[in-house]
């Protein structure tokens, strides 16, 4: 996917869904991101991998404005997130799926999926519920519309969370370790939904430890280490023939288990 572009600077700023350059972030004394440049094209599925503490989750959270970069430019869906006045424009236009699901426990699956359609999009209840049911059907949970999160399995909860994001018709979907809180036998149903989304052409940025998902679904795998992008390429390149010793070590460790 890293096609050679004749006029890189001018073109990418317009066509890239996401363009980060020189992004730095520190939490107190800890420098988490030390100058990251990354671009994501429309329809591309990018998987961020790396050891915990490598900065991949922070990078993802910067892309949906849940964290602010200390330095650098962050363009997401043509919104400059480094411009504090314009950054809030991104909300409601990208979807975020969290490790801990973050479903609203006091609302049913349908209530979760329709809340923002009602309050943000200001749809009528009828239209919101119609779109909500469609979104739930996309993740295979049409029949669970009236269940509360506590009545659903972890895998089902995460699929509702995906439906909640999809209902807003997002330009990009972000996934922050979406299967890390799940029992192993429930991982497949969530990665299955994600794979379908990828096949349908959704632009996705995924932080995950599921190497099989990364291998099978990613257009590009980005290996982060110590707050920088150390290596990136197709899954075949990164998994089959990693250039960096650190990447080899990391893959060796995670693929062993």
């Amino acid at each position, binding site marked *: 996917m890293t096609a050679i572009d004749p006029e890189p600077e001018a073109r990418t700023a317009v066509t890239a869904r996401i363009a980060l350059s020189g992004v730095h972030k520190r939490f107190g004394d800890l420098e988490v991101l030390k100058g990251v440049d990354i671009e994501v094209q429309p329809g591309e599925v990018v998987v961020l991998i790396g050891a915990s503490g490598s900065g991949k989750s922070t990078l993802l959270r910067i892309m*949906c*404005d*849940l964290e602010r970069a200390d330095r650098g430019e962050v363009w997401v869906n043509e919104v400059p997130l480094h411009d504090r006045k314009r950054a809030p424009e991104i*909300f*409601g*236009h*990208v*979807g*975020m799926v*969290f490790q*801990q699901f*973050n*479903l*609203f*426990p*006091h609302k049913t699956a349908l209530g979760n999926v329709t*809340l*923002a359609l009602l*309050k*943000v999009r200001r749809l009528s209840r009828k239209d919101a519920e119609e779109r909500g049911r469609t979104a739930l059907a996309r993740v295979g949970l049409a029949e669970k519309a009236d269940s*509360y999160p*506590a009545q659903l399995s972890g895998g089902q909860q995460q699929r509702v*969370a995906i439906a*909640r*994001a999809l209902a*807003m018709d997002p330009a990009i979907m972000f996934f922050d370790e979406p299967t890390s809180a799940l029992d192993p036998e429930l991982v497949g149903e969530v990665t299955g939904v994600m794979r379908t989304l990828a096949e349908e052409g959704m632009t996705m940025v995924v932080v995950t430890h599921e190497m099989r998902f990364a291998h099978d679904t990613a257009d590009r795998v980005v290996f982060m280490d110590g707050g920088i992008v150390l290596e990136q390429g197709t899954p075949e390149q990164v998994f089959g023939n990693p250039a960096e010793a650190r990447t080899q070590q990391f893959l060796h460790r995670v693929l062993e288990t």
Partner: protein
Amino acid sequence: MNWSTIWSNHGLFTSGLEGTVELAATAVVTGTVVGLLVAAVRTSRVPVLAQLGRLYLEVFRGTPLLVQMLFIYFGAAYQGISNITVYEAALIALTLYEGAYMAEIFRAGIEAVPRGQWEASRVLGLGPVQTFTTVILPQTRTIVLPPLVGQYLSLIKDTSIAVVIGYVELMRQGQAVIDRTSDPVAPYLTVAALYFIICFPLSLAVRRMERKAAPA
């Protein structure tokens, strides 16, 4: 002890009960509103406002309601605000005093809701106020309700302090009956029983609501 005097003075008790209920019911509403606002401000971490909220809490929780009520009523008169009624002074003092405690109850409830709920709402495009009212507050219910109603019960009983500025409520009318009959036992028992009759159903109602809220 002479119980016949209770019945013969029942008009006094009725008017006292009315005064108590009116003050308590209004102060429950105003105190809750103040408590919610102060809790929202405190948890928002807006620099100056959050500190003002803290200062308010410390002052009103650190001084007796009795002093506050006397200060507001007589202080207002001293400042030339002579048209303040005893009812208004009692209501202001109760609101600010009980509101300070309720603010801490609400704050504990708000802070018990995981941060991820704010984050999920934010990415979906909900504004801070929308998130607070539709996502956060409903989740605080089970945490907030028991101590909040405990505070309501305190508030109801604290209305008796308004006797010091001459507000006509149960306590004052009880004392009036004692003055007439020179029997302290039956009137005080009656006053206590009437407070209990107001408070006890509230306790029961909360217990029922808690039981209902449990499964969800």
